[in-house]
């Protein structure tokens, strides 16, 4: 399995897509999370949110839903919707490896969110395709080629 790596250029593209989605969908916040629960990008009103915990729980939720899908012989359930009194959550899987989460309130609607998510998903898929191609190029420099055993030891000194 390839590790997830994020570079400056793709990160900027992803942030642009998330910011536009936040605007176009009238969303409160947009989170992009990898399937292992690491937050990749966020847009909108996230200052009051515990995005680390939200990312981990969402990934757990998506993994559990994926488990249910496979028990039912479905490939995957690509979307989930949670309806609350104040906040609604739309969750979808993009490019089979990242999770797009939209938080929205009464200023938006499920229909609008779904419509905007569709376009954003296509754009994000193409960014992740190019990211994957870049990671698989053997010539791409890695931070780990610079790190020494001593650097690692220093991290664990009391």
């Amino acid at each position, binding site marked *: 399995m390839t590790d997830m790596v994020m570079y400056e250029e793709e990160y900027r593209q992803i942030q642009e897509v998330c910011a536009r989605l936040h605007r176009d969908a009238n969303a409160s916040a947009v989170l992009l999370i990898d*399937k292992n629960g690491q937050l990749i990008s966020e847009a909108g009103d996230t200052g009051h949110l515990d995005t*680390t915990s939200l990312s*981990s729980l969402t990934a757990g939720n998506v993994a559990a839903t994926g488990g249910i899908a496979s028990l039912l012989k479905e490939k995957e359930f690509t979307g989930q919707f949670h309806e609350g009194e104040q906040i609604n959550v739309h969750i979808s899987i993009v490019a089979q490896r990242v999770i797009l989460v939209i938080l929205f309130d009464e200023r938006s609607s499920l229909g609008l969110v779904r419509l905007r998510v569709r376009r954003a998903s296509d754009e994000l898929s193409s960014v992740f395709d190019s990211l994957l191609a870049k990671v698989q190029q053997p010539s791409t420099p890695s931070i780990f080629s610079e790190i020494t055993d001593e650097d*690692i030891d220093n*991290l664990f000194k009391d």
Partner: protein
Amino acid sequence: MSFINYSSREINCKIVYYGPGLCGKTTNLQYIYARTNPDAKGKMISLATETERTLFFDFLPLSLGEIRGFKTRFHLYTVPGQVFYDASRKLILKGVDGVVFVADSQIERTEANIESFDNLEHNLYEQGYDLAKIPYVVQYNKRDLPNVAPIAELRDLINPEQVPEFEAVATTGYGVFDTLKAVAKLVLTELKRGR
């Protein structure tokens, strides 16, 4: 599966605490949470039953400091130990970078340790991992109890590869950080080696 972000200069890794029911996986995380500087930790989440048995997982995000300008963040997870939660354990192992096997040292839990260890190997294998090839350490927990099995005996059963091992009493914290440091170091060394 680690996540390396060159833009925010972060290295993120996932460590899973595995072991039989009531062996002390959650207690390990609770001790780490209690003894870590607030700046270096996020909120600890426990998805547990009403009787405080882990239902899905516990989660604790930790920062360990910087290497060459990159923040190293570790996400610690526990699995539910009870036998019938196997489907959940498989999900939590997805994308794992390092494993801590927490054994319950009490003699009467020997069979439960072996069963859980076999289950770990099996579940990793199902997802294309080989326990012998991933960063992995063993913790012999509950060493303060009177009815514990000798370490040599436990080693034969659940540490045949002789990976780094630690005696522990998770309730007092003895051995808890030694175990965490050892697995975190192995994970980073493996990431370096793999490039």
